[in-house]
Each structure stands twice: as C-alpha cells, then as structure tokens.
C-alpha cells in the first residue's frame, strides 16, 4: 500500500500512450473514397441523370401542391388521428372493463391485418357503393319515425359518402385509422413501461384515474412512445404515396411520376421525388430530436447539464462532494 503513496520523482506520471493501430480503418476509408469518387464522376458524366431537370421538376407547381397537400398534410393528419386514436385504444386495452378490452383488441386485429393500400382502395370506392350516404342521428330513429308516422326522422346531419370518399380527408382518415392500430401497441408498451409505483403515488395523493393517467403516467410513457412514433411518422410520409389508391392524386409521388412519364424524364422525376422525401424525412428527424429531449427531462442528463455537473465536480475539492 505504502509504495503508491510514497513521494519521489520516480512515481509514474501522466499517461501518453500510443493508440492501438487500426490499419483496417484506413483500408476501408480508401475503398469508400474510391467508390464515392466513382459515383460522383458518374453523376457528372452520365447526362441521363439530368440533375438540373430534376431540380426543375421539384419546383413545379403540381409537385409542390402534391407535397403540401397529400404528403405533408396527409402525414400530419394521419399521424394526428393515429396518435390520438392509438393512445385511446391503448387505454381501452388496459382498461378494467373486459368489453372495452375486447373492442380494442378487435380494432387492432382488423386494422393491423389489412394492407394500407387495400384499406385505402376500399374506402375510396367500396364504402361509397355500400352506403351512399350516412345519416347521423338517433340510432334506429328513421325506423321509429316510420312506425310512429312522424315526419321528423331524428336525423341531424347527413354525410354524402360518394362525395366524401374520394377526398383527401377520406384518405387521411383511412391512413389514421390504420396508423392508430400500430400506435396503440406503441402506446401500450409505453404505458406499461411506467413503474407501477408512479400510479400508486399519484393515487395516494388523491388523484383519480383520469388525472393519474394524464398528468403522471402518460407524460412518462411519452419517453418510450416518442422514438418509435418518429419512426412511424417517417413511415407515414412514405405511405402517403398510397393515397393514389383512393384515388387522391394531389400527392408527391403521383405528381412527379406523372410529369416524368409525360415528359419522358422518368429518372429525373424519380430523383426529384426521392430528394423531396429525404428532405421531409430529415426535417422530421430534427423535430424528433427536440421532442425526445423534452420528454426525456428528469431522465439522464442533457449535454448542457452534464457540462454543468462536470464544472461543479471540478470546482469542488475531491472528497467534499456528494450530498
């Protein structure tokens, strides 16, 4: 013991060790650089890529309209319905009422089981064929009115399904219903990840189930829910291209490929649509970063907090720290 404590200049000092050599990394770097150089040279020399044209297609009015309406509004709307619906279905799934639990299970079973493309095609043309219009009113109100011979048939609002079913809104509803089934599983996992003691502590303070869920459990579940939801959102951006099955054609992929086939600039059109999808996806990733940071508060440390703590530790003499 005493050897390490003893004084003298022969004691080992600060370490300046040589790093472990990684020749493989240099080989890989060179190989990758060569491949990238080949790719760039092909972009420059192969005129069929036609990047200027692709840039032009990206900026055309129908493409921009398709991007804003079908793709961006479609994603936002679909995800809004999906997240709200999903959390609701997850709460039903965890309810003490067996009937609600079954409803939730059945919903997930159905909407997760059918492809989005099929669902959208069905909403677009099938539902309008089955039900031309949907009346909102008292259940069986029309039958009652007939029996009783009343002129009022208890209908408050009528939806013309034929008109509605081919709109962007119908498409958004379809995407949202399908998304809700997936979001329900994500939300359920999130809710279950919250320690049971949290709900108990909240209840012991006199909070009822609603407040407990809203103020204590869900905010903590969000930490687990947000990352896969970001994934779902980016998947949704791409799935808006399925809206053409409704058929809603004010949508990014339909518009660009239409321009591509009309002008015979097929590949530049694909480049244009790829670029747009990548841009939208990148923006969403930035948003996800901030959301994750917000819902991760209190768990682990942000970089700034870590720096602060580090500064404090250095400022305080060793052995005096801690509380």
């Amino acid at each position, binding site marked *: 013991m005493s050897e390490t404590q003893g004084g003298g200049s022969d004691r080992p000092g600060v370490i300046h060790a040589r790093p472990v050599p990684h020749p493989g990394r240099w080989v890989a770097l060179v190989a990758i650089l060569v491949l990238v150089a080949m790719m760039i040279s092909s972009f420059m020399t192969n005129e069929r890529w036609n990047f200027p044209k692709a840039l032009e297609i990206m900026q055309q009015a129908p493409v921009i309209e398709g991007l804003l309406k079908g793709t961006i509004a479609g994603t936002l709307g679909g995800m809004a319905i999906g997240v709200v619906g999903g959390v609701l279905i997850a709460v039903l799934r965890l309810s003490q009422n067996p009937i609600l639990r079954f409803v939730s299970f059945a919903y997930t079973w159905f909407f997760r089981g059918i492809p989005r493309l099929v669902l959208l095609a069905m909403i677009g043309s099938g539902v309008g064929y089955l039900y031309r219009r949907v009346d909102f009113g008292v259940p069986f109100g029309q039958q009652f009115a007939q029996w009783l011979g009343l002129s009022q048939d208890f209908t408050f609002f009528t939806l013309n399904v034929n008109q509605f079913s081919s709109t962007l809104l119908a498409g958004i509803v379809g995407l949202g219903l399908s998304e809700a089934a997936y979001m329900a599983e994500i939300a359920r996992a999130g809710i279950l990840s919250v320690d049971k003691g949290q709900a108990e502590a909240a209840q012991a303070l006199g909070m*009822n189930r609603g407040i407990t869920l809203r*103020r*204590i459990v869900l905010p903590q579940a969000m930490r687990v829910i947000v990352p896969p939801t970001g994934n779902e959102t980016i998947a949704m951006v791409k799935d808006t291209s399925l809206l053409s099955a409704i058929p809603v054609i004010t949508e990014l992929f339909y518009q660009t490929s239409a321009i591509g086939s009309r002008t015979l600039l097929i590949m530049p059109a694909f480049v244009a649509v790829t670029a747009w999808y990548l841009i939208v996806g990148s923006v969403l990733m930035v948003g996800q970063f901030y959301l994750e940071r917000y819902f991760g508060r209190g768990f682990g440390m942000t970089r700034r907090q870590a720096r602060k703590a580090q500064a404090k530790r250095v400022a305080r003499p060793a052995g005096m720290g801690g509380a």
Partner: protein
Amino acid sequence: MTETTSTSRQRTGAGDAPPLVRAVNVMKSFHGNEVLKGIDLTVHRGEVVVLLGPSGSGKTTFLRCINQLETIDGGRIWVDGELMGYREDDKGHLHHLTDKQVAAQRRDIGMVFQRFNLFPHKTALENLIEAPMQVKGISKKEATARAHELLEHVGLADKPSAYPGALSGGQQQRVAIARALAMDPKLMLFDEPTSALDPELVGEVLRVMRDLAKAGMTMIVVTHEMGFAREVADHVVFMDAGVVCEEGTAREVIGNPQQERTKSFLRRMRSEEQQERQDEQDLEQA
C-alpha cells in the same frame, strides 16, 4: 444521540376523542393466500404507531389497505369516522365506492413509500404542487409558496428545481414526505421509509419524521428502525403471519416482550444491530 421521551409531545386526549383510525378484523388474501387474518388497530389523533414484524407478516399490506391501495376482503376500516372503500346502505349492504369517491378519501391520508416514487419527470417543486393544484384546485401561486415552505421544513430549501434523479436517496425521501404533507393530511402512512436508503442517509429521513411526530402528526410507520420505535412511538404493534401478536407501549413491546415470536424477532434485530455496530468499529480500527 440521546434518547428523548415522547411525553413532551402534545397529544389530544386518547380516551374521550373518537379514534382517527379504527380497523376491525381486517382480512386480505392474494390468490387464496391469506396475508391478513383479522387485524384490529386503533390509532388516536396525534399518536405515532409503529408496526413491527418480520417480512411477510402483512405490515405493508395492512398499511396499503388503510388508504385503499389494496381492497380488503373482510372487516372494516374507518378513518376519521368514515368507512374506507365502501358505502353502507340502510339495510346494511356494502357498496363499492367509485374511483372518484375513493380518490377523495385518500386526499387526507399521506403516504410515503419505500422506493420514494417521486415523479421523475417533475422537479422537486413540481412534485409538491401537482396534487394540491390538480386535486384540490389550489392556485399555482399558493401551492408554490406552500411548497417552498415545506421544502425548507425538510431541509431542502435549495433544491426546488432539482429533478429527483439528481437527488440522493435521503433527499428524495424527504421530498416525498414534503409531497405528502403538501396535501395537508390528517394521517401519514410510512411504508419502510428508510429501507431503501444507504445507512448514512437514514438519519436525515428519521429526523424529519421525528419533527413531524413532535408537531403532532398522526403517523402509522412500518419500519425496522428500533431506535426510532423506542424513541418516537406511542404504541408499538408486533405483527406476524397476518395477525397482531403483541401490542403496547414501546417500553412494553420492545423492552419487555411477552410473546415468544416477539422475543425471537427482537433478538434477531438486536444481533443485526450489534453486527452493524461491530462492523463500524472494525472499519474505524482499520
């Protein structure tokens, strides 16, 4: 630390005033496993009752039954004259209370958990103001002022904006006590409040509890801290295998136990305490 007697504490007359907690023949089973086999307990206002007993004896379960975190299968529990968890109609039939009614009954009963259970996504201050604002509808300003006061009481005036993850176990438990007090409870339940703490942090939590007892709070405490029981408890209840084995003053139960089970439990606790003391001495000598 010198021992102080609990007689200096103000107490309302135990004889005439109705008890704050009256539990009669409380029974509870989990999946056919009988955990509580008819517990009787009476707690008067201002009294500190310590529940002792080996693990698995049902102390924690009984504590959780008092504020309905567990529903009871038999017997009755009244807190401040109110039947907990059920409503009795004119014909003597019992009806379950709704979620909201149960929540309302819990408002006046504070609970401190072994594992603190602070809300990790909220700062210490936010932990304290959440329930008063959400449940009692107190304004944020008023709740915040009261929260600062309580944090000062538990010695954490400088930590209102700290997240629980940045606090030590002892600090977290003190915040948890302050959080329960923020609802102005008439009864405080402590479920092994120091069992999850490092030994050097136990003292700061016991100090807060001792102050609380001195201020006249009615407390039911499940603990293995014999020193605390001897010093603060007005009434000690020894439980084993779901029944009350022995009860009385701390001096009677801890100082002069009558039942064999109590004796052997206390012997075990004492030898553990001695072992700890021995370890400390060994450390000092090394």
